[in-house]
């Protein structure tokens, strides 16, 4: 039995590498062949083509993320039409059903952003920057959007590259040019979160830093009190459960009756310590 996962995040993206680890573990546990695929960059056209390629191989199950229903819709519908059971993960909970997916595992980027924004506003934040290391990547843009909505106060998007040094400098620059900033929302723990913590520390001000996703070093900062929290979607579940469900479906025809929300889960100082170890192994 073969199950193919086509996601919009690359295997070297810290967030998606955890999804991939979940996929692989589920493959091992259920004894099916799994295959994780993604376009080289955030590219919806290429992703649609990858789904088509997967459909051609007629797998026993297909897992997809749906950051752009318009672009991916026809390919997913084609898979459904070809009789391949489809489960959507991560993004696309709103359209999943419509396109014929059996269910959705995960949690919307936007909702996670809203949750984070609300929490930071509750902690007293009024003026925030949202560090976006990949502007134009719709799933990241949605995180910022959701954050702005939940936060309510002033939110400036700070576009950066993937380079930690540059991110640290830019955050430092933003902090020193606007004394009012009291909150930093980073969209990736390893790339943006850690340098943001460093910049915040160097500024000598009291700044709340939060991030999407987890990285061991960031969690350590949460434990040490240098950062507020990290948002965990438990994306391992997205990969693991989707494959597990499809494997069971192929074997016994079983399928849960509704969507499975995998998050959001805010990791604050009390929970962080126990998560560090799992995070450095790529499970959380």
């Amino acid at each position, binding site marked *: 039995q073969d199950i193919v996962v086509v996601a919009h995040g690359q295997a070297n993206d810290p967030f998606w590498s955890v999804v991939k680890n979940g996929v692989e573990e589920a493959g091992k546990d259920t004894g099916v*062949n799994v295959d994780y695929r993604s376009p080289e960059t955030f590219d*919806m056209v290429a992703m649609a083509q990858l789904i088509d390629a997967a459909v*051609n*191989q007629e797998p026993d199950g297909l897992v997809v993320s749906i950051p*752009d229903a318009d672009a991916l819709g026809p390919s997913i519908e084609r898979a459904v039409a*070809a*009789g391949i059971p489809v489960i959507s993960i991560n993004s696309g909970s709103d359209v999943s059903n419509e396109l014929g997916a059996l269910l959705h595992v995960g949690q919307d980027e936007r909702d996670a952003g809203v949750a984070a924004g609300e929490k930071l506003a509750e902690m007293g934040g009024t003026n925030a920057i949202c560090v976006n290391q990949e502007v*134009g990547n719709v799933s990241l*843009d949605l995180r910022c*959007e959701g954050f702005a909505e939940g936060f309510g106060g002033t939110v400036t998007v700070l576009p950066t590259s993937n380079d930690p040094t540059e991110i640290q400098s830019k955050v430092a620059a933003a902090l020193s040019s606007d004394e009012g900033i009291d909150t930093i929302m980073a969209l990736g723990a390893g790339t943006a979160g850690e340098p943001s913590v460093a910049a915040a520390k160097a500024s000598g001000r009291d700044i709340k830093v939060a991030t999407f996703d987890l990285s061991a070093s960031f969690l350590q900062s949460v434990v040490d009190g240098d950062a507020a929290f990290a948002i965990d979607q438990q994306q391992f579940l997205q990969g693991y459960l989707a494959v597990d469900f499809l494997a069971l479906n192929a074997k016994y025809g079983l399928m849960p009756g509704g969507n499975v929300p995998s998050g959001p889960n805010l990791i604050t100082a009390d929970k962080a310590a126990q998560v560090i170890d799992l995070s450095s192994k790529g499970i959380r």
Partner: protein
Amino acid sequence: MNASDGALEDERVKAESFLSRLMRRPELGAIAGVILVVIFFAITADGSMFTLSGFMNFMSPASQLGILAIGAAMLMIGGEFDLSIGSMVAFAGLFFAICAVNWGLPLVVTIPLTFVFAACVGAVNGTIVIRSGLPSFIVTLAFLFILRGLSLVGLKWATGGSTQLRGVREATEGDILTPFFSGDAFPGLFARLAEMGLVETFGNGAPKVPGIPVEILWFVVIAALATYVLLRTPAGNWIFAAGGDTNAASNSGVPVARVKVSLFMLTAACAALVAIITVIDAGSTDARRGFQKEFEAIIAAVIGGCLLTGGYGSAIGAFFGAIIFGMVVIGLTYTNFDQDWFQVFLGAMLLIAVLFNNAIRKRVTGER
């Protein structure tokens, strides 16, 4: 000493096999690479890769890349680069989507408008390069950033804050021009073939291949046209001359500035074509469209034998270069390799393909 007998029976020329005369052409070098890649995947990949639907599946991204690569190749032959084509895809796509969705214009207006718009940007690029004498690398790099940035700004403006503009499919549905720029050509033919059992079908009887994706047709037509222009028209001669040695070409009376600016316009138009095809097909556009395509287009052109220094190369080479690149990228998903190794294989395949076709060419033509 029968020099006057003419070149036909010159004792200073060895007889040459048909094969080596063929291999001497830059465009045919890349064929060796294609063959190698096909053999590799025939062995390692799932059998469905080389079914009709598998073929269409890898040809479709290869074609989109290839259209850009042919533009890039012609510009490279003319001695310049355009790093802004990837951003141009996003920008032209946005322009097209705004025309079609926000303003509700019909395609007969939108499509020419998009081409004109793109060509103007290309002309600006070209004019700055010619006037300033700066390397096109740095000028078009600036436009890489500018156009990408403007796409983001424009998207937010057009959608009221989102970076994704949707609804293009609805807006273009039913337009008489739509079938020329999206979907599959000859659906009737393929349905008939499926009925006759000549094309595989899904369980429900629908043909696995509903037709030939239009981008493949565009790709083939553009490759043929570009080859014709390069090899059989005065303009082609000027392009080679301008790229080979700008000074010498200009001293010999080639209107170098005009040639180069036209090439920039052409490249931008190729990007616009890809933008139109992908935006209609996807039904939406976002700020990341075409990201790094400039890079891939140059890669394909170089695999196909274009020199970065200009003056040498071919459109057919870029054609095969794009196919090699597209086949490797998609083909690896048909194999059982772990995705973690994807980039390693991609790099290794590219290197092996170019080394192989280089070795073959040297072998056959008896170069040192």
